[in-house]
C-alpha cells in the first residue's frame, strides 16, 4: 500500500505523525514504507472502539475500581517544605464534582530564562507576589477604648523584608475606603473611630487589620524551590490572571490547579486538559495506574458545551435528556413535576429507562434490531 492511499483511512494527526517519522528515520524503500503503512492502519483500527460499546460504564468502572484502593485524606508531606495540597478521594471529588472553590488552590510559577537561576531575584519576586495585609506587617493590634481608636504597631523588620515603605502603607490605607480618621506617629498608626460605639470599634479593628498593602490577591503563601536547573515558586492560593501579566513569568509553563480559573483565563480546552492532568496526577501519586482515555472521556463530557460541569445532580447527571433517568438518580419528585409541567416526552433511548421498564437496553447486543422486509405476494 502506498502512503498516499492511507491518507483517507487514517486521521490527519496519525497520518502526519507517521509521515514525519518515516522522514526522520530516512526510510526510502517502497516495500518498507508499504509495510509501515499497513501496520499503522492495523494498529489504528485495533484501537477503535466498536459501535454500541458502553464506554461510559467501562470508564466509570476503570476509574472506580482503583478509587476504592485510594487512601483517604493522606497528608504525606507533613511538615516538610512542601505545600499541603488536597489529594486522594477528596481531590477526585473536587475535580469531577467541579467544585467552584478548591480547598487548596495552588500555583506553580516558572520564571523566564535570565532570572530563573537568580536566587536574589526569586526571593524578591516571591516577596512581591505574596499577599500582604496590614496585620502581617504589625507587631500589635490594640483597641484603645479611652480614645476610641485602634492602634497598630508596625513591625519595621517585616516591612523591610517585604519591601514595603511607610508611604506605601499610608497610600493603601487611603485607598481602602476605611471609615476612620488616620493618624501616623513613629511606627504606630491610629484609626480613630468617627462614632463612639464600642461595637464599631471592634469592627474597625477587623477592617483595619485586613487592609491590603501589597502583593497579589489570594496568594497567601509562597515557597521558592530549587528544581534541577531552575527555581520554581509554589504558592498556596491562586491568581492566574495577575501572575501571567508579570513580564518575567514564563506563561507557557506556569500553571494552577484551579480548574475554574483555567477555564476563565485560558478557555475551555485548557480546562479540559487541566481536568485530565489533575485527575491523572491524583491517581499517579497514589501509585495507581489507569488509562488516560478514561479521564479524557470524563473531561470531554464535563466540558463539551463550553462550561465546566460536574458529574452529579447539578451537572451532567442532572441534565440527562430522559426524565426517568434523571428521576432515578436523585430528587425524583422535582424532576417528575417539572417534566409534567413542561409536557416532556421520554424517548426511552437510554440505559436506565429501559432497565426500569424491563426492555432490552440500547447498547451492546441490544443496539441493533432486525428490520423485516415485507415480501409482496405475487
Amino acid at each position, binding site marked *: 500500500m502506498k502512503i498516499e492511499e492511507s491518507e483517507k483511512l487514517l486521521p490527519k494527526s496519525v497520518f502526519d505523525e507517521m509521515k514525519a517519522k518515516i522522514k526522520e528515520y530516512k526510510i526510502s524503500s517502497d516495500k518498507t514504507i508499504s509495510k509501515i503503512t499497513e501496520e499503522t492502519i492495523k494498529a489504528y483500527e485495533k484501537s477503535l472502539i466498536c459501535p454500541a460499546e458502553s464506554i461510559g*460504564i467501562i470508564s466509570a468502572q476503570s476509574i472506580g475500581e482503583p478509587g476504592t484502593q485510594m487512601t483517604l485524606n493522606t497528608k504525606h508531606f507533613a511538615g516538610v517544605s512542601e505545600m499541603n495540597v488536597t489529594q486522594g478521594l477528596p481531590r477526585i471529588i473536587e475535580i469531577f464534582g467541579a467544585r467552584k472553590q478548591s480547598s487548596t488552590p495552588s500555583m506553580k510559577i516558572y520564571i523566564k530564562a535570565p532570572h530563573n537561576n537568580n536566587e536574589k531575584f526569586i526571593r524578591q519576586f516571591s516577596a512581591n507576589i505574596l499577599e500582604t495585609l496590614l496585620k502581617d506587617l504589625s507587631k500589635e493590634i490594640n483597641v484603645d477604648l479611652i480614645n476610641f481608636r485602634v492602634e497598630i504597631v508596625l513591625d519595621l523588620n517585616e516591612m523591610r523584608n517585604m519591601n514595603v515603605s511607610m508611604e506605601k502603607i499610608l497610600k493603601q490605607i487611603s485607598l481602602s475606603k476605611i471609615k476612620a480618621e488616620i493618624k501616623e506617629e513613629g511606627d504606630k498608626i491610629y484609626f480613630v473611630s468617627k462614632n463612639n460605639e464600642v461595637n464599631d470599634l471592634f469592627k474597625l479593628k477587623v477592617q483595619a487589620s485586613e487592609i491590603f498593602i501589597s502583593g497579589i490577591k489570594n496568594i497567601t503563601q509562597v515557597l521558592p524551590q530549587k528544581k534541577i536547573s531552575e527555581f520554581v515558586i509554589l504558592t498556596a492560593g491562586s491568581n492566574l490572571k495577575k501572575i501571567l501579566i508579570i513580564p518575567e513569568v514564563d506563561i507557557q509553563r506556569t500553571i494552577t490547579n484551579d480548574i475554574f480559573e483555567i477555564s476563565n483565563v485560558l478557555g475551555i480546552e485548557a480546562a479540559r486538559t487541566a481536568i485530565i492532568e489533575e485527575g491523572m496526577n491524583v491517581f499517579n501519586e497514589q501509585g495507581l495506574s489507569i488509562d488516560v482515555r478514561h479521564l479524557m472521556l470524563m473531561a470531554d463530557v464535563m466540558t463539551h458545551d463550553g462550561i465546566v460541569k460536574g458529574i452529579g445532580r447539578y451537572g451532567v447527571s442532572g441534565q440527562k435528556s430522559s426524565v426517568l433517568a434523571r428521576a432515578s438518580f436523585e430528587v425524583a419528585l422535582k424532576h*417528575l413535576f417539572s417534566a409534567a409541567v413542561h409536557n416532556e416526552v421520554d424517548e426511552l433511548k437510554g440505559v436506565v429507562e429501559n432497565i426500569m421498564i424491563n426492555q432490552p437496553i440500547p*447498547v451492546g447486543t441490544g443496539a441493533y434490531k432486525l428490520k423485516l422486509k415485507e415480501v409482496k405476494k405475487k
Partner: protein
Amino acid sequence: MTEVCFNGVIVGTVKNAEEFSNNLKKLRRNNQLTNKLNVHYDKKADSLQVLTEAGRARRPLIIVENGKSKLNDELIEKLKSRALKWNDLVKLGVIEYLDAEEEEDSYIALNEKDLNEKHTHLEIINAGILGSQAGLAPFSNHNSTGRVMLAAKMITQGLGIYTTNFNLRIDSDVSIMHYPQKPVVDTMIYKNVKYDSHPIGQNVVIAIMTNEGYNMDDAIVLNKDSVGLGLFRSTFFKPYICEELRYSGEKDEITRLPDPDKGVSRLRGMEEDYAKLEDDGIIYPEAKIHPNSVLVGKVSPPRFLMGTEEFRMEMREKNDSSIACEREDGKVDSVILTETEDGNKFVNIRIRQARIPEIGDKFATRHGQKGVIGMLVPKKDMPFTSTGVYPDIIFSPHSIPSRMTVGQLIEIIGGKVGALGGRNVDGTIFSSESEKDLRTQLHELGFRENGSETLYDGKTGRMLNVRIFIGNVYYMRLKYMVSNKYHMRTRGPVQLLTRQPTEGRSKDGGLRLGEMEKDVLVAHGAALLLKERFDSDKEIMPVCSKCGMISYINYYRNKGVCSICGEDAPVTFIEMSYAFKLLLDELKSLCIYPKLNIKYKD
C-alpha cells in the same frame, strides 16, 4: 485549684489534688472509707474523680509500699494455715480493688522480683493481666496480640455443655456438644473458673501439611472416620412458639387440625405436612419432621371482614395460621403446653437436630486459628505415621507464618507429650512448662524432639519425602454451621406491593443482582441477558393506545376496556416490569398524567 467530682458531679475544689487523693486512699486502706471507693486524678483536665458507683469493673491487687509487697512471709504463713482469709487481707489493707480509672494512676509490677520504689501495686499472679476468656488459651505469651484477642473471642463461641439443665430450658438456637473433653494442655484458669467441668472442645491429632488443596486458605481437612466415631458431634435445639390469640367479639384462634372441609382456607402446606399432628392439633414428641412440617395446627378468624358477613357465623371462613418449621429436618424434642400471662393457650415446641460435622462448619484452636471444613477424607485416604496414627485434622502450614501463632506449635508438642505421658501439661501464660522441657520429654518418650514424624500417603502407601509436624491440639467446634446459613432459591415468594422477590434467608428470598452487577452486564453489552435477569416482576399489561393508560380486558366479550376511553378501546399488550406499572400509578396519584405513546417497533 482542682475540681473534685463525686460520681461525675462537681462537688468542690481542692488545692493540692495529689495529696488529697493520697489521703483518700490512705483512709480507704484503714477502713475509714468504704473499700468500694476509687480515686483518679486527671492531670491534663486538672480534675479529681472520686467514684463509688456500681457497675465499674474492678480487680484486686497487692498494695506495694516503698518497693515492698505488703503481703509478707508472715501473712503467707497465716494464709497457708488458714488463719487468714481473703476478706481479712482486704481489711488489713494488703489487697485493694482498683477500677479502670484508678489503674491510670498506678504503677503495677508483674512479678515480685521486679519491684522498685516507684511501684504502687503488685499483681497477685502475673497471669492476671488476662481475663477469664483470654486466660484459657495456653502459651499465649508466644502468640501475637491480635491472635490472643481473636482466640478469646472464639472461646466464647465454642460448643460445649453450656448449662447442665439444658433439657429443661427453652433457649433459642443453642447447641450441645456430645463428647466434650478436658484439654490435655490447660492453664491455671481452667481449674479456677471450673472450665474443666464444662469443656468446649476435643483433643485431636493434627498434622500440619497440605492435602490436595482442600485445606487452602484456612480450610481444614477432617478425618471422616473420626467424625463417624463421634468427633465434634453436637445437637442443635430450636424452639417454636404458638399462642392462641383472642380478638374482640368471640373471634379466637383455636389450635386444631385445619380441615378444609370445615371451611378453613389458605392452607399452609400439603396434606402430608399435617400428618404428624395429633387430635389436639399439636405434634407429638419424637415425631420426625421434614422441611415445612406443621408443628401446631391453628385456625384463625378471617382477617378482613365485610359488613354483614361478620354476623353470619356459619358463613365465616377461617384461615389456617399453623406454625410450620423452616427448611430443616429433625425431631420434636419436647412439647410444652402452658398459658401466657393473659391466660391464652401457649404451645412451645423444641426441635432437635443432630449436627454431624459437614463441609463448611467452623472450627478453631485456642490461638485464633479459625477455619472451615474443606473436605472430609475417609481414613483410608489419610496419611498415617509409622505407628499407625491417623490425624483427625490436616491443617494448612500457610496459616502459621503470617499469623505468628507460635503458641499453637508449642501446644502441639505439649499435647503430644501429655497424651503420650498420660498427664496434663500446664500452659499458663508466663509460668508454663518450658518448650525445652517438653521437647526433651518428647524425645524420652521415643519421638523426634521437634515433633515431626515420617508419614505415609494413605492412597499410595508411599512414604512422604518430608517429615510432617504432627501432634495433639485442642480444637473447638464453633457455633457457626452451614446448615444454619445456606440458602438457595429458584422460585419463591414475592412482595405484595412490588411483586419482586422477597429478601433474606428466613423469607426464602431471592439473591439480589445489585447495581454494580447490573453495570457489569451493561458494560459487557449483554442486553438481553440483562433484561432476563431483571424480569422477576415482568407483566404483560393491556395499554389503551388512545390515551396511553393501563386498561383491562373484558374476557366475556373479549374486548378491551379503558377507564377513560370507555368500552371497545384500542388496547395493545405491552410487556413491562410491575414496578414500572406501580410508578405510573404513583404518578397518577401525584396528578401527573403518564401517557404511554404506543408505537410499533420499526
